[in-house]
């Protein structure tokens, strides 16, 4: 089938990406600014004869995803910040049960109910666990509609490979903006288990029963399990860290940004490079695991971290650089975002 170039919103691209990646089960509950994703799934999942459920709440949606995942299906839910907070218990249980799932957070501004403007204020929640217990979600941050689509394949594959929840972290702009997407409308993958899942609860006729749980009453048993998880996280850190860098080697100042913020930063780098300024960009693609290695190439440069928040990722940058001497921060959330003009003023 030929590739087509279409105009589509980030939210819809995420939905189409998920369907083509073999998402068989979607449960969600409406919340701005990710409603178009739920609406898209409501239409498309039924066309593909898969399961779409508008749940009665965010909590029930994530727990339905847990059930579908335990049965071996590729499962997904989506929401925006306050809704993602509600899902944290389910996320912790998914991690504790070692169940794959994809969770999309199209962030709005907080805290509390906040407002519906784009923000990146859930970085801590996404990358440091979020729910209770020692666990991590793999966190991917697309910065274009094309990546929003492409990363869904990556997300479901990672989730299955490591039996771990994967979060797609985007902001309201990414969800709402419409831009060209190059896509092949192929017959979506509808195989039940895309990767063979021996552990799944598929009915134990002619085999020993599988048990999925996150409950280890004995002290030593839980510690053994936790060490196993930690080993898995180490492997993920080693193998799955991704980032993009532009003009880092000779840069005197390096911008660090992800998602929509990284688009604006990239524009600034392009503009100032043309004027001869030695400026570069590091764009983390996996927010967890954080691409610490990216900072080894030019650790002496001046770093300016840009966020649509009041300073969250900047802490990971300081850890990567082992100190905060050369790390600066510029961020806004709740209505405004750092503008090109503001960034250029800070760079100079």
């Amino acid at each position, binding site marked *: 089938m030929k590739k087509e*170039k*279409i*105009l589509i919103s980030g939210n819809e691209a995420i939905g189409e990406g998920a369907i083509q990646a073999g998402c068989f089960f979607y449960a969600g509950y409406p919340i*701005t*600014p990710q409603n178009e994703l739920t609406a898209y799934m409501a239409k498309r999942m039924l066309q593909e004869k898969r399961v779409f459920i508008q749940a009665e709440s965010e909590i029930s949606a994530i727990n339905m995803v847990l059930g579908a995942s335990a049965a071996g299906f590729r499962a997904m839910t989506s929401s925006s910040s306050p809704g993602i907070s509600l899902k944290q218990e389910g996320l912790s249980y998914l991690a504790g049960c070692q169940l794959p799932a994809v969770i999309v957070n199209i962030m709005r501004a907080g805290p509390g109910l906040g407002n*519906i403007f784009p923000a990146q204020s859930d970085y801590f929640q996404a990358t440091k666990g979020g729910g209770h217990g020692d666990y991590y979600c793999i966190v991917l941050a697309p910065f274009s509609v094309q990546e929003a689509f492409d990363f869904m394949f990556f997300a479901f594959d990672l989730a299955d490979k490591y039996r771990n929840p994967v979060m797609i972290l985007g902001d*309201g*702009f990414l969800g*709402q*903006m*419409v*831009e*060209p997407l190059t896509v092949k409308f192929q017959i979506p993958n509808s195989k039940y288990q895309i990767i063979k899942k021996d552990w799944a609860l598929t009915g134990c006729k002619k085999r020993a029963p599988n048990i999925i749980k996150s409950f280890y009453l004995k002290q030593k048993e839980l510690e053994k399990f936790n060490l196993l998880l930690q080993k898995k996280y180490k492997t993920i850190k080693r193998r799955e860290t991704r980032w993009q860098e532009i003009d880092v080697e000779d840069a005197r100042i390096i911008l660090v940004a992800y998602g*929509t913020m990284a*688009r*604006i930063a*990239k*524009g*600034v780098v*392009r503009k100032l490079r043309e004027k001869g300024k030695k400026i570069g960009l590091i764009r983390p693609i996996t927010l967890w695991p954080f691409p610490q290695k990216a900072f080894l190439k030019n650790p002496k440069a001046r770093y300016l971290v840009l966020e649509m928040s009041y300073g969250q990722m900047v802490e990971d940058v300081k850890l990567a650089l082992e100190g905060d001497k050369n790390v600066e921060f510029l961020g806004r959330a709740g209505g405004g*975002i750092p*503008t*090109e*003009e503001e960034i250029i003023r800070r760079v100079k």
Partner: protein
Amino acid sequence: MTEKIIISGAGGQGVMLLGRVIAEVALNENKFTSWLPSYGAEVRGGSAFCMVVVSDEEIPSPYIEKADTLIVFNKPSLEKFISWLKPEGLLLVNSSLVPKLNPNKNIQILSFPLTEIAVKLGNIKVANMVALGIYLKRKKLFDIKTVFKTIKKITLSDKKNLIDINIKAIKEGLNLI
């Protein structure tokens, strides 16, 4: 070339569609483009706006800080966005709903009674397409043939009867300047 357009009006005036059509035309001419809708608690009769960027290069931000063109369909929109227009920028005003406009030498003003023109054409909803025609003629960013082709392509199959009136409105706009 990078053209940044803010379009604003009341919900129901076709603000979103106008922006979307410009982005679709840009796509069909193989340009980079982005379209960002306002997505607040917009309702029919409330205010609505969208931001469209068309460029020969990759687009950094879909969000517009300073616009090359501002198209407004009612008075509150003019008041809200006039300060977002670049010096020398183009202001296209629907004079049917923005009666008085202070002269301003720093910007280029095009003022037409878009709503009245649309009513005369037989459908009040095509005021947005009249604006499109005026805009196309003034900026000459796109081949008009692509525009008509795009309109035909993006019209939903059960709305094909509306293609003619939309094209008629665009042609009316083209002939106004």
